[in-house]
């Protein structure tokens, strides 16, 4: 298998601000020397607690790091080095080749724009679709994420639909252009348990049907064990472990991973009546 993504020695730090240098502490690294690759069609879970650098890794890959941060290292998408390309070039990749679904669908969607238009936006931008062709593509994308009444949904504003429906819409917009890499950042954390299960199944089905690669970010080992082939464990901005799911569940090596697994097992065993 060829690699779709290769990250080499990625570090992210807070930019030294000349005017505030006297106040700031010595430069603080948020990500330290991270390297990993993802094969075509591979599903990778990125797990760690709040502040471990999971989301920052996703932002670095998609060129969305805040301006106050600075990064070094290389990121290859296929053959192309994408960590130092212009915004304009990145926009051609983001949303078309690499798509992201965020945790909170209520804030990821524009509250003032009808849902159908938000799904249409990447199709218009990347494929130049207009008119009837665009409408058909939008409906197809909404049906793909099992939004039963796609016409009604397309015509609604985000506040008029449920949280689960909103997350389906966000997924529809992300996959509309058939990206090769899908990054989901805690996509089910804000949802009810039963809805969470449905969204997980949906992501799993879409990823396998389209043979997409997946980076699934979560703090929940049980969730990651459902969707990923391989797990990267992050702590304090570093990778502490990189191993297949079966191996992680059977024989984790790093003490932190052992702790994660112990806690996940405690919650899991509570359900054994």
């Amino acid at each position: 298998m060829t690699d779709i993504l290769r990250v080499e020695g990625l570090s992210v730090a807070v930019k030294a601000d000349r005017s505030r240098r006297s106040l700031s502490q010595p430069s603080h690294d948020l990500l330290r020397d991270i390297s990993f690759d993802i094969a075509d069609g591979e599903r990778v879970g990125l797990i760690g607690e709040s502040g471990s650098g999971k989301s920052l890794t996703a932002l670095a890959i998609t060129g969305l790091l805040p301006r106050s941060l600075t990064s070094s290292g290389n990121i290859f998408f296929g053959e192309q080095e994408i960590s130092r390309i212009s915004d304009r070039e990145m926009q051609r990749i983001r949303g078309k080749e690499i798509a992201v679904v965020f945790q909170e669908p209520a804030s990821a969607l524009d509250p003032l724009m009808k849902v159908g238009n938000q799904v249409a936006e990447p199709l218009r931008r990347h494929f130049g679709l207009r008119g009837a062709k665009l409408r058909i593509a939008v409906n197809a994308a909404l049906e793909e994420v099992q939004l039963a009444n796609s016409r009604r949904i397309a015509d609604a504003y985000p506040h008029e639909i449920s949280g689960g429906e909103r997350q389906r819409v966000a997924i529809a917009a992300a996959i509309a252009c058939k990206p090769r890499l899908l990054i989901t950042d805690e996509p089910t954390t804000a949802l009810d348990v039963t809805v969470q299960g449905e969204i997980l199944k949906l992501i799993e089905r879409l990823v396998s049907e389209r043979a997409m690669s997946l980076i699934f970010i979560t703090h929940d080992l049980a969730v990651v064990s459902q969707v990923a082939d391989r797990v990267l464990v992050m702590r304090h901005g570093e990778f502490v472990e990189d191993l297949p799911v079966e191996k992680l569940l059977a024989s984790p090596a790093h003490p932190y991973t052992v702790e994660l697994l112990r806690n996940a097992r405690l919650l899991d065993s509570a359900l054994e009546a």
Partner: protein
Amino acid sequence: MRLLELRNATFQYRASRGETNSVGISSISLVVDSGSNLGVIGESGAGKSTLLSLLLGLTSPSQGQVLFRDQPLLLKSRQQVVQFRTAVQAVFQDPYASLDPRRRVDSIVAEPIRSLKLLSNQGAIDERVKESLKAVELVESIGLRYPHELSGGQRQRVAIARALATHPSVLIADEPTSALDVSTRIEVIELLRRLGDERQLTIVMVSHDVSVVASLCHEVVVLNQGRIVEQGLIHEILSRPKHEYTRSLISAVPRLAR
């Protein structure tokens, strides 16, 4: 002893024009018995918040009764309300929102003692604050800090310390762990379990997460659309759920694969 009871309680929200009355909760009966932690499981819109505001004496039911130590709870009776607030304390979901950012931790923890006028001597108040912080395994010096200096897990411990300050007999916890990481979540559950055992404290845990409820509670009530669809002992409901909704809730919990 029956610490707290809802007897056929219904609470209706006033409907907006043209709509029929939407029911918050409808004919709910449940008992909080001393020594038996109760879990209330439900998803968004199930009526958990409405149920909580009745159990916390923040609103009165439109029909039915709330009983506190076998007496109807009358929110107009100042004396009974003071007893009630002393005995029934709460911890909320979001420790970033539930602590006053402008006050030091020691003053936050002392707040219920002050507002209920339980202790008047400053030395005794300080002593109580110290004891509460110790009970949640926080060092005494954290009393001098402000909430923004603390992690999510530490904040939730402060919220629990504040609830313990009145020496309550019931602790009502509204999704106390859902804003926390899995590891911190386990720590908070273990803390609540220990506090329950050591302090004769009965815990009412409201959550959408069956596994969290199962790790702490003996009995459980499953709420759906404002009604109880199933109630009983947790291990019986986990092994033999009767209602379709309960089954879907249990099977939806993500499990460790393989």
